[in-house]
């Protein structure tokens, strides 16, 4: 594939943001990811799909530094990435959401999203406690960014509600909000639509497309709902048993025999 391409709906997708080269990840004797290579390009929505246990979440965890692969290289913006801690990677502009919601249940929506700005805050704790001068200014600046996220996700009405009291679909939205508050260049979404009803899925799809369109954020997502994946993503990686079995546009993937076999099962007899 050439350096950049144009999607059917007219967006120009740029060069490689992230490139995974021959990644292998082992837990003791279990090989979670086997020699996988793929790339994510500037401005695209990239889906990673596969049956349960295929290694999708492990792949996201490798990208954001939770796991360190035994073999392979990760190239980020044209540079080979050294092993890093997750917070260092977050500082490089990679944010994520989790498969099982990981919010602070006793804190309000606003405070939860505010934590997404933590990495961008520079004043020290003592100053923040006095809340004068730079600390106050900094909080105001960050609050402004957070309020824009709240406006964007249309969750003004739950700004002050403790997150634990919210329905599941809204909690997912708050989690997306926290990731967006970090103003990431690359956003990783781990099953953003799991457990949602049709209407909530439609809303979430709309938000994902809008994030991509309005802020130009590159998005990598794991999702089980094939309809959603085929509708919103530009390119799809298919994994099965830790291996890559397909990679391409939704149409190419849909017609790939290995993918069909993995999803529908094949006769081993």
């Amino acid at each position, binding site marked *: 594939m050439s350096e950049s391409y144009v999607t059917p709906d007219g967006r120009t997708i740029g060069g490689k943001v992230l490139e995974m080269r021959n990644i292998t990840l082992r837990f003791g004797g279990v090989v979670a990811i086997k020699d996988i290579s793929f790339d994510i390009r500037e401005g695209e929505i990239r889906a990673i799909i596969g049956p349960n246990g295929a290694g999708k979440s492990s792949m996201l965890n490798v990208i954001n530094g939770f796991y360190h692969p035994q073999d392979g290289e990760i190239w980020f913006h044209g540079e080979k990435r050294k092993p890093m801690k997750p917070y260092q990677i977050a500082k490089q502009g990679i944010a994520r959401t989790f498969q099982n919601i990981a919010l602070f249940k006793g804190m309000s929506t606003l405070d939860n999203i505010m934590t997404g700005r933590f990495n961008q805050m520079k004043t020290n704790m003592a100053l923040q406690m006095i809340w004068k001068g730079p600390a106050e200014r900094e909080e105001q600046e960050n609050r*402004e960014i957070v*309020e824009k996220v709240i406006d964007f996700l249309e969750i*003004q009405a739950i700004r002050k509600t403790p997150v634990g009291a919210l329905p599941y679909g809204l909690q997912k939205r708050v989690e997306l909000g926290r990731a967006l508050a970090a103003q990431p260049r690359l956003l990783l979404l781990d099953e953003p639509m799991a457990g949602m009803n049709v209407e909530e899925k439609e809303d979430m799809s709309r938000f994902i497309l*809008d994030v991509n*369109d*309005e802020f130009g954020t590159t998005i990598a997502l794991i999702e089980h709902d094939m309809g959603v994946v085929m509708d919103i993503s530009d390119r799809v990686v298919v994994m099965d048993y830790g291996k890559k079995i397909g990679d391409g546009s939704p149409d190419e993937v849909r017609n790939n025999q290995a993918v069909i076999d993995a999803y529908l099962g094949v006769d081993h007899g």
Partner: protein
Amino acid sequence: MVSKRNILPEGLDTFPKLLARNAKQWANVPAYREKEFGIWQSWTWSQVAEEVDALAMGYLALGLNEGDYVAIIGRNRPYLYWAMLAAQAAGAIPVPLYQDANAEEMAYVLEHCGARFIVAEDQEQVDKVLEIQDGLPAVEQIIYYDKRGMRKYEHTHLNAYEHVQAEGRAGNQRLAPVLAERQAKLGEDSTCVMLYTSGTTGKPKGVVLSNTNIIASAKASAEFDHLNAGDSVLAYLPMAWVGDFIFSIGQSCWTGFCVACPESPETMQADLREIGPSYFFAPPRFFEGLLTNVMIRIEDASPLKKRLFHKFMAHAKKVGPDLLDGKPVSFIDRLKYRIGDFLIYGPLKNTLGLSKVRVGYTAGEAIGPEIFEFYRSLGINLKQLYGQTEASVFITQQPDGQVRADTVGVPSPGVELKIADNGEVFYRSPGVFVEYYKNAESTADTKDAEGWVATGDAGFIEESSGHLRIIDRAKDVGKMADGGMFAPKFVENKLKFFPNILEAVVFGDGRETCTAFINIDLNAVANWAERNNVAYGSYQELAGHKQVYDTIQSHIEEVNKSVALDPMLSGCQVHRFLVLHKELDPDDGEMTRTRKVRRKIVGEKFNDLVDALYSDATKVSTETEVTYEDGRKGAIKATLELRDVAVVPVVKEVAA
């Protein structure tokens, strides 16, 4: 014929002139507020005048002509109010539409008024317009406010609001004289706004209101309630509704008070509390819902709080309304009320966001006396008014100190009333509309040559107080078999005041006796069932429960007692009833979208049940088709109990 000439003060007979005066007189007084990004943003009158001028000149740059119609679609936002003011400034006529209207309803109105310009709030509204644009050759320009998601649209006829304003500002030199020239031509007879009636019967009609209509009504009503530049109001009711136009544009421009717009429809309650308006309007349903919430939360409060609440509320009920009306109250009672105010009423009003309300109105439908008294006993000056789009809202309203739950007040300043022989109410005032747009026939049907307008409501003027009482829609009022008056809504409203009853439909036109269908209020009845350990599996089962029937029966018997007291309507007592096995629903055509029961359709659809009510049977089996939210259809079967109710014997007065 009442002369309409020179009703308005010189120099204040159009909105551009009012705006210019406000920008000078109250240059630094907030005119509009809106909560955005968690903060209340505000604009002073001088800023508003600048924004409006910039947009008006932008309209000119895009080629808006004098007399054009500009459709405005969206929720209450300052920008959209300015879009209306700017249309007037440029010699055009604003036409606000209901933002939740579907594309088809919108298409009818846009086609009917032939709007060339459309100002839409956001992508959702633009999409609706684009969907129907093929059938609307007149539409030339669409202006949108919220840019989100709009980047990829084809922009030959689409413009962002701020770009239109920028264009207007850039062309100031060239366009300002044109604007001034157009404004000079406007006067008190120019059309101020065109509002479409919601159309419960037939297609919506475009009500043309002149500057005289709106400004005279705004002026009279503002003086009636002593509104001034220090007041504030929360604008949350649909912009297409005449009331919002009068409050948020008419009275606001006349008196200079501040209009605050909520952050989003869902945050209205929180925003209400933050703004604490001094002037507030809400339909009865809003006050009912609020009271229900309060009561549910009190049930969950600690025993001490609960006891305090009930004790002081009982006291408030006793003396609160009298205090509000300025009637004599003993010193001890006053003192007790002050303590109650400190402990209960004050904090409660603050929570509800009604602490500062000096003038509150409810209208649109009858409000339950209990609910009405509750708010008044807290010291909230809630009053009723009776109005119509065709009257620029005000027909009657209650003056301070003469407020009652069962009347709608005395004629508003400048309004004359008369009651026709069949009981229909007619009025004449400076606010009476000019005409229905492109519909001379309907205009002639509604307004006669002398300017009297038929309201379509039946009512009478109470001799003791001079207040108007509305009985029912004139076309629903019928005759019982014995010649007595049949007013179903009168009885239904009394029934609906019981929290357990959501809807009631009373039959009896041309019959010996009246009967009723009852819809239970699932929230209230389910709550009762939970507290009393009544098990049920479905709505249908709960509705058919014996104890529920017993409760409803006792409610109806109480209503019968109160109906029997009315000499004209004592024949309308309910003799038999049943509790319906399904909720009446707009999706099934049984109600309008604004949740008003379609009596005739209900009667036809459930004619087997009506027949059963007028037979001797005690049970009836039926099958009903229902439409689910996604449009699929199904059927439910049920066997319903029919119950007799005790009625109060009526002694017929011997005709003289």
